[in-house]
């Protein structure tokens, strides 16, 4: 059937409490792939998508950050308040508010629906996660709720394909009239109690009892912390143990491709560019894809299951000891994937000083870009043996590096917040129901991570590898030169020029060269090292992989010093750019870069000196 396209575009906005499924519904309706997770605070600003209903109505849909009320206490809640009230800069008030409620938590979410209704704008209510409510034995009388609220009410299962059909049908109806508004002195809690009494029946269920029992362990001050540490520890063990066969496979493919190109092309600059530049550079980084995917499989599973807010609750005391509130946990946790979304997620923090401190320490959380460097050096210098009977030593070292980042962040926060009174806003966190992670969501999340990583390899890393190859290959060695050609190249000169600065911390000139392109992104340092060593390699070891090359040419002290450098160094343009954008000043960027580089240099210096004292220097 040919739908007649209406002339006007309907502007609708999704609003609701945090973690009620707004973004999942937004993705379902618009076909977008915005990040969703089973915890509050994933969306921190408005997002826009478009859809067309069956009757041809064009809808411009906004996904707004979750809010507990329209009296905003944080920057993200202010976005929701301003958009709903038509006060957001350059944005007219939406024609229709779509208030999304979690069917399993109506007591809390109906309170917000009443708040939205007070705006007196056309609205519909979507009871999301209706399947979860049914599983819990909840019976919701939709018709009664609709009559009591005075606005259209529909149900949805936002995470299921086709689960938003009732919402789509509701959009096709004429705009509902403005809803009735309660007097300003009305007791909203009493109204919610009446609505629940009239429209919802709730028998106690076995699953609820099980969740309560589980929470008794998971939220226990001692056992809960032990479970959290065990989960993190297992995660890093898995990164090394599970990924190895896959990494070996990818490495073999890269090696074979290099050999193929070497066999097809005659000796010359083009072969050098492809083999020593592109394949050695990008290929060395691609090998780490399995480890990154396994790390994210754990993180996404914990996100989806509903465990993460519980971890935030557990760590609130630890955060308080560093002068921060538990609200800093989600931004810092996001920073384990990448500091950019982590820094943006600080918008959920009301206290401006807490927010600034969280922004300053977020780059200390070990982002996934550090993983290639950590695993390269660990594989080269830490023996692959079992400790205490069950643990992989390499995994233990990786875990220690992550802990070093966390401890440093807490110490810096403590120093920055010294002498300040406790936060005025205590942590108020909604604990969602436990959920089995959906395979589709996990697969989608992993695909997005893989495509982002490969896209970075295909753009940033390949182009920098080519440029570094050119710098390492030209000018060519003069006639009669005895040393390796790279010694006479521009890169060789730059490396030696930087050496006086970095020699006191144990770095050689090849590392100095790799640090320059590594400013763009941390993992680029791996490809840069691969390119520098590939260009400088003799015929005999030209085919050797980077790991054995490093273990034969570097001392353990140099490797440990470089690891210490990367725990702190803010080698990421995107992170510095997002700090500028979120704080609106270059001053904070300069402070962040200066203190992080200072810490990196100090940590490397101490590590190098300790290594020298224990005989870990050059032999």
């Amino acid at each position, binding site marked *: 059937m040919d739908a007649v396209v209406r002339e006007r575009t309907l502007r609708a906005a999704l609003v609701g409490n945090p973690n009620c499924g707004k973004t999942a519904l937004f993705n379902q309706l618009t076909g977008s792939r*915005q990040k969703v997770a089973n915890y509050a605070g994933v969306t*921190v*600003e*408005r*997002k826009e998508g478009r859809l067309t209903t069956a009757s041809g109505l064009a809808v411009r849909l906004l996904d707004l950050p979750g809010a507990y009320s329209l009296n905003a206490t944080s920057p993200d809640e202010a976005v929701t308040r301003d958009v709903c009230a038509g006060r957001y*800069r*350059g944005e007219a008030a939406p024609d229709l508010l779509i208030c999304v409620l979690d069917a399993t938590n109506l007591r809390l979410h109906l309170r917000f629906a009443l708040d939205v209704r007070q705006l007196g704008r056309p609205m519909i209510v979507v009871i999301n996660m209706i399947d979860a409510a049914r599983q819990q034995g909840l019976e919701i009388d939709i018709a009664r709720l609709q009559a009591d609220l005075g606005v259209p009410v529909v149900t949805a299962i936002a995470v299921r394909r086709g689960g938003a059909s009732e919402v789509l049908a509701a959009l096709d109806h004429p705009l509902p009239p403005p809803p009735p508004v309660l007097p300003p002195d009305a007791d909203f809690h009493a109204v919610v109690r009446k609505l629940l009494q009239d429209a919802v029946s709730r028998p106690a269920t076995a699953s609820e009892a099980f969740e309560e029992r589980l929470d008794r362990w998971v939220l226990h001050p001692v056992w809960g912390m032990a479970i959290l540490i065990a989960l993190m520890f297992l995660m890093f063990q898995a990164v090394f143990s599970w990924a190895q066969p896959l990494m070996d496979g990818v490495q073999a493919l890269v090696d074979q491709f290099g050999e193929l190109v070497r066999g097809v092309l005659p000796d*010359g*600059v*083009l072969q050098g*560019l492809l083999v020593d530049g592109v394949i050695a550079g990008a290929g060395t980084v691609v090998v780490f894809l399995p480890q990154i995917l396994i790390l994210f499989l754990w993180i996404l599973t914990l996100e989806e299951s509903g465990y993460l807010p519980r971890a935030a609750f557990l760590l609130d005391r630890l955060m308080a000891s560093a002068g921060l509130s538990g609200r800093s946990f989600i931004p810092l946790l996001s920073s384990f994937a*990448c500091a*950019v*979304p982590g820094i*943006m997620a600080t918008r959920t923090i009301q206290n401006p000083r807490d927010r600034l401190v969280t922004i300053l320490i977020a780059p200390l959380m070990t982002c996934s870009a550090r993983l290639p460097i950590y695993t390269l050096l660990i594989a080269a210098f830490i023996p692959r043996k079992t400790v205490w009977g069950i643990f992989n030593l390499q995994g233990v070292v990786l875990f220690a590096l992550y802990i070093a980042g966390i401890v440093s962040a807490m110490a810096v926060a403590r120093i920055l917040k010294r002498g300040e009174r406790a936060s005025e806003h205590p942590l108020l966190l909604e604990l969602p129901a436990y959920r089995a992670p959906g395979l589709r969501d996990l697969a989608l999340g992993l695909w997005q991570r893989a*495509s*982002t990583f490969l*896209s*970075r390899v295909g*753009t940033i890393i*390949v*182009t*920098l590898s*080519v*440029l570094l190859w*050119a710098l390492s290959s030209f000018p060519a060695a003069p006639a009669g030169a005895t040393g390796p050609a790279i010694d006479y190249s521009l890169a060789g000169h730059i490396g030696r020029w930087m050496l006086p600065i970095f020699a006191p911390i144990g770095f050689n000139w090849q590392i100095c060269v790799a640090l320059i392109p590594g400013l763009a*992104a941390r993992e680029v340092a791996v490809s840069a090292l691969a390119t520098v060593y590939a260009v400088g390699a003799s015929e005999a070891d030209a085919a050797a992989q980077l790991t054995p090359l490093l273990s034969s040419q570097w001392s353990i002290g140099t490797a440990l010093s470089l690891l210490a450098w990367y725990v702190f160094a803010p080698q990421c343009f*995107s992170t510095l*750019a*997002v700090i500028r*954008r979120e704080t609106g000043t270059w001053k904070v960027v300069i402070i962040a870069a200066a203190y992080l580089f200072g810490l990196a240099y100090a940590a490397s210096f101490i590590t190098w000196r300790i290594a020298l004292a224990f005989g870990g220097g050059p032999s």
Partner: protein
Amino acid sequence: MIETAIVVVVVACCSFYWLGRLAPSAVRPVWQSLSRALASVGAPAPMQRAVAGRLGARSGGCGACKGCDKGGGCH
């Protein structure tokens, strides 16, 4: 000789890519000239659209994401 020419072109393209990332305004005249040249020779529409897209591209973005919000936020 051909090998050297290919290598020079590849290295120049990579340099141009990074110049565009670090100093977008410096490469804008190049895209503008290319856009005019393609229009004058009647180049295929997809090619013209691709170049026009580069002209309209924002300098922001994080990693592979270029979905910056009009308010300066990240999508």
